[in-house]
């Protein structure tokens, strides 16, 4: 029996039951109600540029392969042989013509079709057996400006409807010129013993933690410029369908500067006029400013650093973090290389900023092992700008001031909607206006 999650989340007052961060039954409900239903980020097109390219990853706890087939289509399918269930691909990335299961040798094409197996005649003589019935189980695939998403739910709306007007914000990074973006090769993987929602809610709207968690790290690169600058002046939180972006419009390159590389800031500054012409003055400030963003449920990124990451669930108290560095394709090799190093030195397992975060999320999770502890509530109440009007026209549910729990409350509101919905028909989608 599934638990009513709405009763555990008071998103209006920002009071959240801690059991959602540790309960094993709730976690199983998440795999079904959230991860098997949502559009999940699986790859950037640049990782699978040509015929035969593949990567492997996960949707929820389901192992999947993402391929580029001969007809240039992108395929996402379960990495599990329909014969006995073994994984059919153990590599993280590569180029291949077919996936051959190690167990009995069943061979699958890049489109997931079962092409053949050893001793074919055994099945030729088997009445009612059709190879076409036994391909790798496939997901629906859609791409938004280089980012590949997949869903296992036939009833899910289009990716465009799922992202809705959040695309307007995403374009501030993905559509700043005609050439698009790419991932720098290399997937960084690490394990944090925390519930996946801690990093997700951190990226969707928690800049507040930077003022304390990252004080020491900020000394490394920002001490000369006066440390971390965050305020509710000229900053906002925006939420669409549970996706969220908290951002400053005051300090155009605040995040970028934290990498300690002046050339990246110089590069972004050199692009500002052109991006302004293309996207307007508001979004031209969003590629590098003090900000963080997340796409529901578990895909997040940081403007400036351009680190993109998924928080893959591995049980209620464990998360596997996969991260990549995205760069504008039009940037010079020299600038791309500076991003490769700048993002690594700040947001990777040895990065001066990420090092602080994992520690917090692990111990926020672990405490819930205690019966009394997990029956306490968590405070997501911060709301210092209630009722203040928004002086600019922005899509979504917009809150003034980036120091605010607004996006996180809306993330958990969305979470509860998914958890309690019987089908996609019960899940509301924001009207598109931009």
């Amino acid at each position, binding site marked *: 029996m599934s638990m009513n999650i709405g009763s555990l989340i008071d998103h209006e007052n920002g009071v959240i039951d801690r059991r959602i961060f540790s309960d094993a039954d709730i976690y199983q409900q998440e795999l079904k109600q959230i991860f098997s239903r949502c559009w999940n980020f699986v790859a950037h097109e640049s990782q699978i540029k040509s015929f035969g390219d593949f990567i492997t990853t996960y949707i929820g706890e389901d192992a999947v392969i993402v391929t580029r087939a001969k007809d240039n289509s992108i395929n996402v399918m379960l990495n599990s042989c329909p014969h006995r269930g073994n994984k059919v691909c*153990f*590599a*993280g*990335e*590569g*180029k*291949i013509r077919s996936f051959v299961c190690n167990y009995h040798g069943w061979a699958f094409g890049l489109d997931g079709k079962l092409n053949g197996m050893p001793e074919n005649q055994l099945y030729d003589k088997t009445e009612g057996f059709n190879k076409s019935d036994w391909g790798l189980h496939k997901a629906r695939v859609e791409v938004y400006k280089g980012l590949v998403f997949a869903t296992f739910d036939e009833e899910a709306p289009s990716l465009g409807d799922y992202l809705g007007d959040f695309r307007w914000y995403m374009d501030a990074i993905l559509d700043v010129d005609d050439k698009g973006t790419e991932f*720098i*090769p*290399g*997937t*960084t*993987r*690490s*394990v*944090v*013993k925390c519930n996946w929602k801690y990093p997700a809610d951190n990226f969707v709207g928690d800049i507040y933690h930077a003022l*304390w*968690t990252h*004080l*020491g*790290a900020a*000394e*490394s*690169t920002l*001490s000369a410029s006066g440390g971390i600058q965050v305020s509710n002046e000229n900053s906002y939180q925006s939420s669409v369908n549970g996706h969220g972006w908290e951002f400053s419009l005051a300090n155009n390159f605040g995040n970028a500067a934290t990498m*300690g590389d002046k050339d990246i800031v110089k590069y972004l500054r050199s692009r500002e006029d052109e991006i302004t012409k293309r996207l307007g003055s508001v979004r031209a400030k969003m590629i590098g400013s003090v900000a963080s963003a997340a796409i529901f449920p578990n895909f997040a990124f940081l403007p400036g650093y351009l680190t993109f990451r998924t928080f893959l669930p591995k049980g209620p108290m464990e998360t*596997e973090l996969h991260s*990549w*560095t995205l760069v504008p394709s039009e940037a010079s090799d020299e600038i791309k*290389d500076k991003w*490769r*190093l700048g*993002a*690594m*030195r700040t947001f*990777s*397992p*040895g990065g*001066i900023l*990420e*090092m*602080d975060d*994992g*520690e*917090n999320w*692990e*111990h926020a999770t672990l405490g819930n092992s205690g019966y009394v502890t997990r029956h306490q509530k968590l405070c997501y109440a911060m709301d210092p700008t209630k009722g203040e009007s928004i002086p600019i026209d922005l899509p979504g549910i917009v809150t003034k001031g980036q120091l605010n729990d607004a996006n996180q409350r809306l993330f958990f509101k969305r979470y509860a909607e998914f958890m309690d919905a019987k089908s996609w028909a019960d899940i509301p989608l924001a009207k598109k206006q931009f």
Partner: protein
Amino acid sequence: MNKEQLLALNAIGKPVGIDVFFTIQQYVNQEAYWLNHEKLNEWCDSLEDDLVYWAPLRENILRRNRTPEISPSKVPLFEENKDSIIMRLRRNDSGMCWTEDPPTRQITAVSNLEIFHTDKVDEFEVHTVFTLYRSRFERDDSTLMGRRKDIWRKVGNDYRLAGRLILLQQSTLLTKNLNVFM
């Protein structure tokens, strides 16, 4: 020093004699002592100015794939020079590194030492493997094993680290961070 030079360290030079071996071993052990006792500024001072300190990501690649697993242009775990190490140490020295208080206890056990001559008279190719154990707070626990391929340079009477390739063995780091030099 550059990353290509480090990738070419394949233990094919002439092994050094016992005097040089013993002396360099003392420097390797001294370094491990500094790393294990949070004497990171002493360690940093001992590094050569043109240091390349590189820990590439590991990836599962099929044997038949022709693209190399490790390449200088990929995202790494560490790719440092002396300046970036100094930048990182400012975090430790800030007094505001809350997650390092109480401190991590760590041991880097270094073994399988092999030392070879290179085509430069003052540079030596040093191979080691290490076990890095970390314990934090009550029960936080992590063990990582890796291989190091170094260039140590003779400067006056000292030997100084000029290049290090660190090959951790996990493709998915089964730990939350690398708050540590290896």
